[in-house]
């Protein structure tokens, strides 16, 4: 029996990512399909949907007001004006909300894992990682994203950025999303190894929260940790500084290199983690 199982396991190419440029339309179609299902499920519980939407908006308003009152009260914060601090806060929200919009399914990975349902994911003709990351977008963020983008454009335009700064800002936000993807892959990988996900994803959120403010306010060695080890500075402070015309070209290039390294390491970690999957309880 054991030998038979080993033979079957040997034949199944478990969870090998098959995401290539040529297959992007295929995956886009699946994503639209899964997102539609996710939205329909949320819309069946409208009251709950409005409650979470209200919660997200209140959280944003409360912290935004707090920052506004604090910086206007003190005149400036670490050399930044109130508009600049608010812009960093908005940039943080863009990265955070897009991360939740695309990768909400990671938050639901544990039940799939401990119930053994992950077996079914592994046998489907698509990348298991794609399914775990993007299997259910968060419909609430469809409401908050346009509002946030409008706020970013409104506050960002007060710095009178030139087209190059705007393009670099967008590229760095995409870069930040690549790093966010790496974090989510790492969390999902750790979930396979430790079966723990709720707190590790929230720790990622707490670390990202440190980016609500420019990393300049933190003292060494925390500032370096937030720049190079847990690259919150690259994800949030750098795009903000680019739009304000305060970033150096070397920093921008380094940020793309860091993103390439962390996403590479995250994929490796995922492949290692899959080998620890025991299919228990299935």
């Amino acid at each position, binding site marked *: 029996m054991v030998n038979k199982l080993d033979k079957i396991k040997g034949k199944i190419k478990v969870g090998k990512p098959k995401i290539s440029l040529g297959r992007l339309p295929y995956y886009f179609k699946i994503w639209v399909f899964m997102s539609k299902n996710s939205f329909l499920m949320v819309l069946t*519980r409208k*009251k*709950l949907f409005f*409650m*979470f939407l*209200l*919660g997200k908006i*209140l*959280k944003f308003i*409360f*912290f935004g*007001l*707090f920052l506004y*009152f*604090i910086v206007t*009260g*003190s005149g400036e*914060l*670490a050399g930044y004006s109130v508009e600049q601090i608010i812009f960093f806060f908005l940039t943080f929200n863009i990265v955070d909300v897009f991360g939740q919009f695309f990768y909400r399914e990671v938050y639901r990975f544990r039940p799939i894992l401990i119930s053994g349902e992950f077996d079914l994911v592994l046998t489907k003709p698509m990348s298991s990682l794609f399914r775990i990351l993007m299997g259910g977008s968060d419909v609430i963020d469809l409401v908050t994203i346009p509002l946030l983008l409008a706020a970013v454009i409104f506050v960002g335009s007060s710095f009178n950025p030139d087209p190059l700064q705007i393009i670099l800002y967008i590229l760095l936000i995409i870069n930040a999303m690549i790093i966010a993807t790496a974090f989510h892959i790492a969390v999902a990988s750790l979930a396979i190894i*430790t079966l*723990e996900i*709720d*707190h*590790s994803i*929230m*720790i990622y959120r*707490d*670390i990202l*929260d*440190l980016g*609500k*403010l420019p990393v300049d*306010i*933190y*003292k060494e060695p*925390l500032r370096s940790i937030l720049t190079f080890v847990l690259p919150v500075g690259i994800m949030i402070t750098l795009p903000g500084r680019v739009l304000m015309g305060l970033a150096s070209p070397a920093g921008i290039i380094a940020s793309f290199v860091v993103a390439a390294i962390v996403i590479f390491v995250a994929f490796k970690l995922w492949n290692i983690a899959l080998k620890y999957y025991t299919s228990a309880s299935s």
Partner: protein
Amino acid sequence: MSKYLTIFKVSLAQEFAYKTNFIMWRVRNVLQVFLIFFLWDAVFSEPGTTLFGYDRTSILTYVFGLLIVRGLVLSVKSYEVAGDIGRGDLSNYLTKPLSYFKYWLTRDISSKTLNVVFAIGETIFLYLILKPPFYLQTNPVLLVSFLVTLIIAMLIYFILIFILGSISFWAPELAWGVGWLFITIIIQFMSGAMFPLDVFPQAIQDILRLTPFPYLIFFPIQVYLGQISISVIIKGILVSGIWLVVLWFIFNSVWKRGLRVYQSHGK
């Protein structure tokens, strides 16, 4: 009494059964302090700065006080009440020779004990690495008042959680969302658990003072810091005491009505 002592011990043991969960939760608390600490550290970087009625020492003591006071007031297990009602598990407790209310109060005390022990350890650890100025209150009147405000705060929060959980009697699918909205968003911000409420304009502060939320975190720390006069402390204790009584009556009424409609779904 001995049965509640046993519940206390079992609850404490349960916390240790999920060590990773508990450690991660504490790590999160420390991370949250980092953001607030460095924010205020940057605001008060110039020597002699005074803002919103705080100097560097008092504001950083506020931040460190948050770790302990949050551990004491906001660490609860009774948020599971909503789930108990929704799943019909409440029936298990109603048939047992114990008070459901006292059962959760005991479990909350166990959770608070553990969280405060860890919070004290974390405070010492953070104090050693961040070396902030810290205000040690020595006035016995203020220390006793601080203790009184903490007890009232813990009881207010406990009853609030029970009232929120009672929603499950009528709308079990909504209880979780309502709980999240109040516990994670409204109480966190309006209680001063994120930042002192003095940063808001006076008009907003006056409105907030009419609610029970500032008496959970903000008011006890204010008392510890000696930021307010004795007459304001007495007034605050009276108002929070009134809130405690009002909430207790609301809870009793809601709970009784809830039990009348309770159908033990899922059992």
